[in-house]
């Protein structure tokens, strides 16, 4: 087949994919819908992070004179490892999806369960960080105690709202994964539905990378 003919052939197949009667992306509707939902959810997080940026830029000093955000958290001992765990759970999720596609139910269930464990470990460590932060005097409305007047009140507020909103996503993700694990162990989860669960989980991980960078590191 000559190259020009090939191009024309290709053009004809794309035209027919959009020509009605079938999915133009060759995906089931549920997967497309999950992608669209994630796009929409990304805008919610983007708006929250924009709010955070606005607070921080207009504040001048952040979180207080001579202080760094990282001073308030265990970045290397807790937050770093929990980020690592969350990224690893994305990897176990990918293995589960691959196994589901091959029809390997044992591996699917095992790695879905590992993903759930990763999510739970992340939530536990996040709770530990929150506790430590609150012990230092952080409240939703601002710092109390000796640091009270020295720290921007919006520093803890943005922290709690944004990590809380993300934590809510992780929690619902863990529940979603648990349901999928139970379904898979009974042989009732299709490879497609496992993959869709995976899309959501990867998204939650991806958002965390941004939050970790913006709230803890810089």
């Amino acid at each position, binding site marked *: 087949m000559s190259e020009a003919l090939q191009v024309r052939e290709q053009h004809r197949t794309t*035209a027919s994919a*959009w*020509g*009605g*009667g079938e*999915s*133009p*992306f060759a995906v089931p*509707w*549920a997967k*497309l*819908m999950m992608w*669209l*939902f994630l*796009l*929409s*959810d990304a*805008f*919610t*997080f*983007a*708006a*929250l992070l*924009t*709010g955070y940026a*606005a*607070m921080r830029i*207009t*504040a001048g000093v952040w979180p207080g004179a001579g202080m760094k955000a990282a001073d308030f958290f265990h970045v290397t001992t807790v937050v770093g490892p929990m980020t690592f765990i969350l990224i690893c759970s994305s990897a176990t999720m990918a293995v589960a999806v691959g196994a589901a596609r091959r029809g390997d139910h044992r591996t699917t269930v095992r790695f879905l369960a590992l993903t759930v464990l990763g999510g739970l470990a992340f939530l536990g460590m996040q709770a530990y960080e929150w506790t430590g932060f609150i012990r230092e005097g952080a409240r*939703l*409305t*601002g710092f109390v105690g000796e640091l009270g007047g020295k720290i*921007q*009140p*919006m520093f803890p*507020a943005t922290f709690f*709202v944004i990590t809380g*909103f993300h934590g809510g996503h992780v929690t619902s993700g863990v529940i979603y994964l648990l349901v999928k694990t139970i379904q898979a162990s009974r042989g009732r989860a299709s490879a497609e539905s496992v993959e869709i669960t995976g899309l959501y989980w990867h998204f939650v991980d991806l958002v965390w990378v941004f939050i970790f960078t913006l709230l803890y590191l810089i």
Partner: protein
Amino acid sequence: MAHVAHAEAQAGHELSFWRKYIFSQDHKVIGIQYALTSMFMAVLGGLLAMFIRLQLGWPGQSWPLLGRLFPSGMPDGQMNQAFYLASVTMHGTIMIFFVLTTLLTGGFGNFLIPLMIGARDMAFPFLNMLSYWLYPPAIIILLASFFVSGGAAGGGWTAYPPLSALPGAAPGSGLGQTLWLISLALLILAFLFGSLNYITTILQLRARGLSMMRLPLTIWGLFVTAILSLLAFPVLLAAAIMLLFDRIGGTSFFVPAGLLIGSVPVDHRGGNPLLWQHLFWFLGHPEVYVLILPPMGMISDILANNARKPIFGYRFMVGSIVAIAFLSFLVWGHHMYTSGMAPVLGTAFMTTTLVIAVPSAIKTFNWLATLWRAKIRFTSAMLFALGFLSLFVTGGLTGIVLAQPPVDIYFQDTFFVVAHFHFVMASAAIFASFAGTYYWFPKMFGRMMNERLGKWHFWLTFVGIYATFFPMHYAGFMGMMRRIYSPQIYAHLQGLQPLNVFVSIAAFVLFAAQFIFLYNFFRSLFRGPQAERNPWRATTLEWEAPSPPPHLNWGETLPTVQRWAYDYSPPDMAEDFQPQAAPAAVPTGRSREGRGDGGHAR
């Protein structure tokens, strides 16, 4: 009707009353539920507008009868300020979110999308049902706010902080504002569920042969609108979350330091009220196009059908819808010229705003070209579609005036702005909804509406709209502020009082005229003559299904589409239209299949 019976049989089972009419997953029932609920809210929103006009026409006047009905809002029959501001806020909130958005996307969108693309239902019917059933709780919460202490929210439909952030700021800033936020958050979820369904359905479930460039413009309008809602509403959701935290959790996202309420300093610092304005208008401006893109699509179809001519410049019509949607994300700053903005930024927003006039003008001229030398059928639907054109142009022109910062600084928050958006967005969108109702009523309910009453309704509404809103330009020009409670206390506004009385009387007539429509609607619902399958001799797919379409819409086989949606008056044919699904049977002349350029041989 054997194939209909077969489709019913395919459904397999008789549904109970609850599953069939209340918790239905059928897109047609959900669409009608959305439409009827929106109609109820429209009457309510209109009633609130009457309160506004009552106060502005006769400020300080006592209305003893109303005083007995609303003892707290109108003690001794005299409307108090909190009640007035709550009316203004709720009129805007209800009309924009609870009437037009729900009616156009929830009502027309749900009913028309699967029918016009040749699908049996939405991609995810259960989510569709869930979308509708978030709407009544949102309404109940919103209406409950009228009865809590302090009354309903009074900070305007834009809910600018600090009025909306601090419970002590104004009477309506108490529990009423919190309920407003919760109600809106529920409705945002409903829109999200709806949009997910609309986009997926249009992309995935089009009938064989129905390529994107053969879609009727109604579907293009609804499709692009769903994308806009999907991307814009989450930003409002995030802003609403932050505002709720400010109100309930005591944070200061939107409250600056050093604010005094009743000369008492508030215990907040570190926030920025401008952030709310940015986030709100990032939603708010696309929201305006959520209200106008479906009407643009709907009237394109109605104009072409009644002009018996193909829509002019189909590809440009699609392109301009997409262009308007894209640009709508870049113009939010033109609502904030007076909020403190760098002049360079103001110029940038002015430029993008003026650019959006180009695709809008393309649409307008294409509509006019569609009408050019046509033998127009003046049905009620067509009259309202033509009315849309008139209102859209009138309101669009003042949009160009307001886009320019030096002019807008003078006009900001005056009645000139009220006149502008009531023409271009509110009235235009409601005209398209009327046009759509007269046009698709036979398909929805299997009966025809009364044309004679429809024409009375049109002329009274058309004249009523111009009489109500046109003088407002002048009031704004003279400096009358848009949410003012007592204009008579300013010397420079006292001369406007006769004008305000005129506007108020015109508004009452306009409101009363809508009862002609309601009477026509409900009477036709039960007594109207039976509608045939295709009473308007239209080309699009929904007219292939029986009126009203059965559950799952089509018989055994789905329709197959042969051509684009505008094959009106094809040359050398007996009929003056060729349905999209009719088998290719062009006797002579060239085939017009799939042509999207709207050219026609005459």
